[in-house]
Structures are given as structure tokens and as C-alpha cells.
């Protein structure tokens, strides 16, 4: 067997031990990076499931968390790339604006909630309420997603290479959902849609960006039936 090359490590990698430095100081250091910083590669060790790691970043830096994280890692992210070498807790990437979050393990509930932009990649499974109220974020999950995912999703794309749980896309607006496997049930006003060439192109782009080798033609598209957009006078008695 040929010897394996050592893993690539940027020469200017800055390492922060979270248990020694503490959360506030760690995030303060990352927030202090400006758009033209030359310290672009950061590594956080000993995360121990802590909350709010690398939240509110706004610089083109790459932060790699070596282990599992708690609530809200990478929340409100702009420009930065956050890699989580473990599993991610609830609300990871909440309200992400731009940039990228890559989770090597599983993601807990409400991943990317209310996200406006950017990309979230999950190499394992994502739990319930994945992409709830998404407003433009793209989420690509290699495994399965849980129930009530993309509830009230307004815009953006949710790509699932595995299966989706109950009530996918309940009360959604114009977000698109691409699922390769089965959907346990569709939520209110969510329906199966035709996959047109432009959708295949969007999907191919997202799968490529996420680095997943999956054939876009195997996916089914779902989206809003738009029946809840307007008031139906026959329902007047219900109010």
C-alpha cells in the first residue's frame, strides 16, 4: 500500500482551543476578521457540544470545528465557510445570510431556520423542521430529513438525497423541494411538481456544489399548490 499524503492543512491555520479560550473570546476573535484579513483559516478544537460557536461571522474566512456542536453553530453567517467535523445541534445555521456550512455528521432540529441565503450541506441526516421558514437558503442533505421540514418555506431549495418525514413543505410559499427517496407525507398545500429542464439544472448545480454524486433525474420536485394564497369564501364560516 502506498503511504497516504498527510491531510492538507493551510500554512496560516490558526487554532483556538474552545475550552481554554472560552466562547465569547473565540467569537470575538472571529468577528474581528475583516474582509481583507490574511488569517483566513481557523480551527476550533474541543467544542464539546457548546452553543453558538462561530455565530455571526461576516468575513470570507474558513472555520473548521473539530467535533460536535450544540445549539446555533454558524447562526446568522455571512460570507464565511463553517465546517463541522461532527454532528450539529438544534438551530445550526439559523438565519444564515450567505456563505457555507458543511456538517460531516447529522444535524439536529430546525437546521437553517429562516435562512436568507448561502448553502448548508449535511453529510448525514437532518432532523425535524429542517429549513423551517426558509427564505432563500439552499440546503442539501445526503441522508434523510425529519418531520415538518420546510414548514412555511418561502424561497430557496431543499435537496434530500434520502427520504423525507411527515408533512413536508406544510403551508409553503415558493421554496422548492427535491427528494430522491420517499416522502412519508406532504404537508397542507404542498404537492408533487413537474421536473422541468431548469429545475434539473438548479438541482445539478446544488449537488455539484455540495459534492454529492447523485443523478438529478432520480429526484422528484415538490412545491406549493398555491391554494392557501387566497382567501376562499367557502371557508368564511371557519373564522
Amino acid at each position, binding site marked *: 500500500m502506498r503511504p497516504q499524503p498527510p491531510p492538507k492543512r493551510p500554512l496560516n491555520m490558526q487554532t483556538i482551543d474552545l475550552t481554554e479560550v472560552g466562547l465569547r473570546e473565540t467569537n470575538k476573535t472571529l468577528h474581528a476578521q475583516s474582509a481583507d484579513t490574511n488569517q483566513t483559516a481557523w480551527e476550533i478544537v474541543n467544542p464539546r*457540544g457548546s452553543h453558538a460557536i462561530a455565530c455571526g461571522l461576516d468575513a470570507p474566512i474558513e472555520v473548521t470545528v473539530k467535533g460536535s456542536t450544540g445549539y446555533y453553530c454558524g447562526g446568522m453567517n455571512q460570507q464565511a465557510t463553517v465546517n463541522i467535523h461532527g454532528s450539529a445541534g438544534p438551530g445550526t445555521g439559523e438565519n444564515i445570510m450567505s456563505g457555507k456550512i458543511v456538517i460531516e455528521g447529522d444535524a439536529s432540529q430546525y437546521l437553517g431556520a429562516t435562512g436568507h441565503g448561502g448553502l448548508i450541506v449535511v453529510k448525514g441526516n437532518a432532523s425535524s423542521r429542517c429549513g423551517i421558514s426558509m427564505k432563500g437558503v439552499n440546503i442539501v442533505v445526503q441522508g434523510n430529513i425529519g418531520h415538518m421540514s420546510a414548514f412555511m418555506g418561502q424561497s430557496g431549495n431543499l435537496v434530500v438525497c434520502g427520504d423525507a418525514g411527515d408533512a413536508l413543505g406544510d403551508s409553503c410559499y415558493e421554496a422548492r423541494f427535491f427528494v430522491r427517496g420517499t416522502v412519508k407525507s406532504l404537508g397542507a398545500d404542498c404537492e408533487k411538481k413537474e421536473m422541468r429542464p431548469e429545475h434539473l439544472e438548479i438541482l445539478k448545480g446544488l449537488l455539484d456544489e455540495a459534492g454529492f454524486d447523485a443523478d438529478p433525474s432520480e429526484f422528484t420536485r415538490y412545491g406549493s399548490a398555491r391554494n392557501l394564497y387566497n382567501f376562499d369564501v367557502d371557508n368564511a364560516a371557519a373564522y
Partner: protein
Amino acid sequence: MCGIVGLFLKDKSLEPKLGEMLTSMLITMTDRGPDSAGIAIYGGETKGRTKMTVQSDEPDTAFADLDKTLSKALDGDVTMAVKSTHAILEIPAGTTTQARAVINGLNKGIRVMSRGDSLEIYKEVGLPKDVAAQFDISKMSGTHGIGHTRMATESAVTTMGAHPFNTGDDQCLVHNGSLSNHNSLRRKLRREGIHIETENDTEVGAAYLTWQMQNGATLGEALESSLDDLDGFFTFLVGTKDGFGVVRDPIACKPAVMAETDQYVAFGSEYRALVDLPGIENARVWEPEPSTVYFWSHNAAPTSTEKAA
């Protein structure tokens, strides 16, 4: 919020460290609820004997000669170990109901926290680190245990409102969430003759399981039917003589993380609670599914009441 933890040991060599491991897990969860804390430990049983954990706000007077009084009334050997506001009574097997009647008859403000052959429950108002230190939990050994740190929502911050709640013999329950139909269910269960002490929602959940099991349901069946009859949010962790079970409501918004290795099965409200467990780096870590009953048991051939899921 509220934080819950549980640890079920497969590896006997870890048993002397059960209290220490559970205490450390619970302390990590302190910021999920600082109002009160409690731990249930299954420390093993002595043949022909059963245990009661009792509590008093004035232990010096309340527990004075309690062992002698009980020994005389029950006509059998009674031993007592006082730990701060709690006392563990070892009484002859089968005398629990009689002992409870004697204790109530004393009118000394003694409250029964738990009963069972193996189970001991310690709970008080305060932070997990203080409550654990008060009862020297970290020195306790055992086969499995569960713990809770409370952020009170549905009832007052008192010792009796703290978790775990003892349900039947050797059974107890901790809860993260809130039940919304507990008042009507409490009235119903009281009519059925079930003893419910407080206005707490979780105690109603515990009493509901007791009632189901008194009517012939296994723990697994009782947990299954709780999904239909309990309204509200819950992640329940239920301890039995031989193991523990987990169930989450269908919405499953109350967090839960589990880890399993050859040495243990562990439960935490968050992954943070599990990070110091041995071999956690290579453990199978997952979130329990909603509306699904999970159960682990030391007993290879469970009886009907222990068999679940």
C-alpha cells in the same frame, strides 16, 4: 427547558462510578433549569428487603427513632440511613403500604419520595451541583439511573415538584416539556383512586403510567398509550428496576440525544451532557425518533411488566 440525563450501564466495572458519571452529566445541564434537581439511582437489591426513600424539612426531629417505630409497627427488622433531608429505609419486602400508613400516621411531615427494591430518589430545590453534594451522589454505585434539573413552568418550585417522580414500585419518571391536559387528567385519575400529591403536570404523567400498568398494561404499552392520552410536549425518560425507556411526543420539539457503546447507553437533553463519557468519540450517537418507544433492560428474560416496546 429542563435538562434530563440517564445512564444505563452494560459494563459492570463502571457500576462503582455510576453516581459520579450521572452527577457530572447533570451538572452540565444546569443552565437548562436551575430551580431544582433530582437523581434516581438503582443501587441493587437485597433479597427479602425493600427500600423507601423518605424526606423531611426537619430531619433531626422527623427521623428520630423512625427505624425503631417502624420496626415495632411492621414487626420486622428496619434499618435507616439518613442523608441530609432524606432517609433510606430498608424494610421487609411486602410491607411498603403498611410502612407508608405508619409514616403518615406519625404526622411529622415526612414525605415518601420513592419505593422499590433497588430504587432510591434524591431531590431538592437548588442547583444540580449542590443537590448532588448534599446527598453525596457521586459516591453512589448502581446499575442505572436518571436525573433531572428543572425550569419550573406548571407548578411551584418545591421539593415535591422536583423530578424524578416515583410511579410504581421501582419505577420513576423525568420529563422535559409541559403537559396541557394535566388538570382534567388529574381529576380523572383521582376518581380512579390514584394517589396524586401535587399540582405538578409531570406527576400526572407519572400517575397516568402507574394507572395504565395497574390495569394490566406493560410499561411499553403504557408509554404507547401516553402518546394518545397526554396533550402537550414531552420527552420522558422512565426508569424501571432493570432498565430505562425513552419516549418523545409526536412534535418532538424537546431535545434528546442518545449514545450507545459496548459499555453503556446514555441519554442527554444535549450532546454536551455526554462529552465526558468514556469512548464517546466512537459511540453511536443519535436522536430518538418522535412517537417511538425505546427500552433497554438488564433482564434478558423480562416479565410482563418489564417488557416494553
